[in-house]
């Protein structure tokens, strides 16, 4: 009926040739979109002395960040036809021609007292308008962090999602020593692998680092006394305390979203089960009781559920249970091996290690559709961990018998090894946003 009347209206419009305005403009519904990366150009930043330009190339760091996220397709500077440093220098036609939707220009200035002022502008090329722009004072030591911060601002402006470039990653390294023993270390680095810092070292295994929700503390398993214990350590002060040292296994600590509790795996009663430790009250509450192995617990972001790995079905699969206890529910059915699961920040996905043929790879399960997407393509990929914005997953992979860290965008399109790695690097844990 509406269609018919619209037809009539159209005829009327056609008859009244010169009629410009009419009552009901045509409405077209646009439902499909490309899911490709957004084309963006980060023009090389300029330098305004006095003195030597800083060794860190801000625009390159931004470019690499954006590219690594998988959300952007950046333009190599060799393909650019202009190198503007300020908005006044920009001719948008240049960038439109190159198919760029966004453009970042900027420059680094010396503040005269050994520090810098980094100024940048982000433009919408098609509308020819500035979307954001800041002047950020920084120091030589913080130049990388400033660059990541700019990346976050750009990322958030263009994707509507908070950036996770200025975040950090904890991981365990294992370096063979001349003595024949190995030096094990818990380290924290920038999300791109730069600026690694050692939190704790040991000659005995260190395992399962877990960030507190405020990003200030790390829980981990240490075998330093010959048997596994769970420690909580403040990242900046190095202050630590042992929170679990029961008979048998003490493993796989996981912070509740409110930071008050730890879920962990204990075998004090015989076989490994999931327990919840109240950190303030120091009380322990069993969550699962089963003769099969229950381990690797993880909280849902809302704190209502805990997922874990159990072989009660004969093979390791992921189960879910209310964090207050109750009936366990199996949630993975695809593949014969699924383990080491954790929630995405929005709680809609879980990432885990899944066996594909003879390979162990990183998969993402959509909890709404129960569709499994395999993100990685290694032979022995392990310990996946979501970035705090859910855009990427960091994991350990084995390359030529050496364990390394890699990051993959959540759509699986962009994979990147993290830089500056020495020795075996395992068990990465992406830090939450700092509070």
């Amino acid at each position: 009926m509406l269609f018919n009347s619209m037809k009539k209206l159209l005829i009327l419009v056609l008859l009244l040739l010169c009629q410009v305005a009419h009552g009901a403009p045509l409405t077209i519904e646009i439902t499909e979109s490309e899911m490709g990366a957004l084309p963006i150009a980060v023009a090389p930043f300029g330098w305004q002395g006095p003195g030597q330009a800083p060794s860190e190339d801000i625009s390159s760091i931004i470019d690499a960040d954006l590219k690594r996220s998988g959300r952007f397709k950046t333009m190599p500077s060799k393909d650019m036809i202009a190198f503007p440093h300020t908005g006044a220098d920009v001719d948008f036609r240049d960038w439109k021609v190159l198919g760029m939707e966004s453009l970042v220009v900027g420059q680094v200035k010396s503040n005269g007292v050994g520090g810098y002022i980094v100024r940048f502008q982000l433009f919408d090329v098609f509308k020819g308008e500035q979307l954001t722009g800041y002047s950020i004072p920084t120091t030589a030591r913080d130049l990388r962090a400033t660059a990541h911060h700019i990346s976050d601002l750009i990322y958030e402006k263009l994707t509507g999602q908070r950036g996770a470039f200025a975040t950090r990653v904890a991981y365990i390294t294992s370096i063979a020593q001349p003595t024949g023993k190995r030096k094990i270390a818990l380290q924290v680095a920038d999300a791109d692998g730069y600026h690694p810092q050692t939190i704790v070292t040991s000659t005995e295994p260190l395992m399962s680092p877990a960030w507190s929700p405020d990003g200030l503390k790390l829980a981990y398993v240490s075998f330093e006394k010959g048997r596994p214990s769970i420690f909580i350590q403040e990242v900046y002060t190095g202050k630590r305390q042992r929170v679990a040292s029961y008979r048998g296994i003490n493993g796989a600590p996981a912070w509740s979203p409110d930071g008050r509790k730890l879920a962990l795996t204990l075998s004090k009663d015989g076989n490994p089960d999931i327990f919840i430790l109240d950190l303030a009250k120091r009380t322990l509450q069993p969550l699962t009781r089963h003769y099969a192995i229950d381990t690797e617990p993880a909280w849902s972001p809302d704190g209502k559920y805990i997922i874990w790995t159990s072989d009660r079905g004969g093979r390791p699969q992921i189960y879910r249970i209310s964090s207050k206890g109750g009936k366990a529910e199996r949630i993975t059915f695809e593949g014969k091996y699924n383990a080491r699961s954790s929630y995405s920040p929005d709680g809609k996905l879980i990432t885990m290690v899944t066996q594909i043929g003879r390979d162990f790879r990183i998969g993402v399960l959509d909890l709404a559709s129960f569709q499994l997407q395999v993100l990685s393509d290694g032979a022995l990929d392990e310990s996946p961990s979501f970035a705090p914005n859910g855009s990427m997953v960091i994991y350990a992979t084995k390359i030529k018998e050496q364990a390394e860290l890699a990051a993959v965008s959540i759509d699986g399109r962009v994979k990147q090894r993290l830089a500056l790695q020495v020795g075996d690097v395992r068990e990465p844990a992406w830090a939450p946003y700092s509070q």
Partner: protein
Amino acid sequence: MRDIFKRNPLAVVLAVVMHAAIIAFMFIGVDWLEKPVQPKSNVDIVQAKVVDQSKVDAEVARLKKAEDAKKAKEQKRLADIQRKLEKEKKKLAELERKRKAKESEAKAAEKKRAEAKKRAAKEKKRKAAETKKKAAAEKKRKAAAVKKKAAAEKERKAVEAKKKAAAEKERKAAEAKKRVEAEKKRKAAEAERQRKAAEAKRRAGAEKKRRAAEALAAEQKALEDALQAELESERMATERDQFIFAIKQKIQNNWLRPTTVADGLSCKLRVRLIPGGGVVSVTITRSSGSGAFDRSVETAVYKADPLPVPKGAGFEAFRDLNLDFIPSK
């Protein structure tokens, strides 16, 4: 006289000559009596003179008296006569010459006549032969003519007969044809009559039927017209739909939607175009609440600029567009 002369020229000439001789002898003979000069030459004349001599003697005696009186006169007259005679002689010679000439002429004429006669005879003979020949030829000709005529006649008759036969045949055929035609016509007429009768009979029913059919046809036409109109508007709608589809495709192909924004977002734009599809303005009429999402749809429109639109009047429907961006997923 002429006819006499013509008929008996010799007799005439003899008569004239005789008369002349008599006269001459009358005057000259006295003188000449002592001298019978030419008794022999004119025996007849002498005889005649003898018969007439008595008369003449009497006369001469009587005359002798007159003559003596008249002797001088006579002398003179004699001289005149002599002269005249002389003259006559001359004239006579002339006459003789003329006569001779005439004679030769006559002879020639006679000859000529004979010749002519001969010629005539010959001619006559020739003519007779000719006539005979002619007659024969004529006869022959006539016979041939008769024969020819007969043949011609025969032929003519044959042709005629043939012609007649043909004509007859034709006539008969025509007649037959005519008859057949007439029969046919008659039959056709009969059929027509019957048909008409049937028609008339049927018409009553048919009229009813026709009216119904007409009504049906009218209805059908109305339906067809309506369908046509609908098709036309559909065609326009189809054209419009094609452009709508093309616009949709072009914008969708240019829409890089940030997957990072929450699901279920949608956004409405008002786009103004100029003929040719150039984008003049893009206005967000209902924001999705996400700047990134809103920007992605605006950018999609700008990147799709110019949009495919119809040429001419069809463009008007596309001048103002509402674009609803509602991701299906």
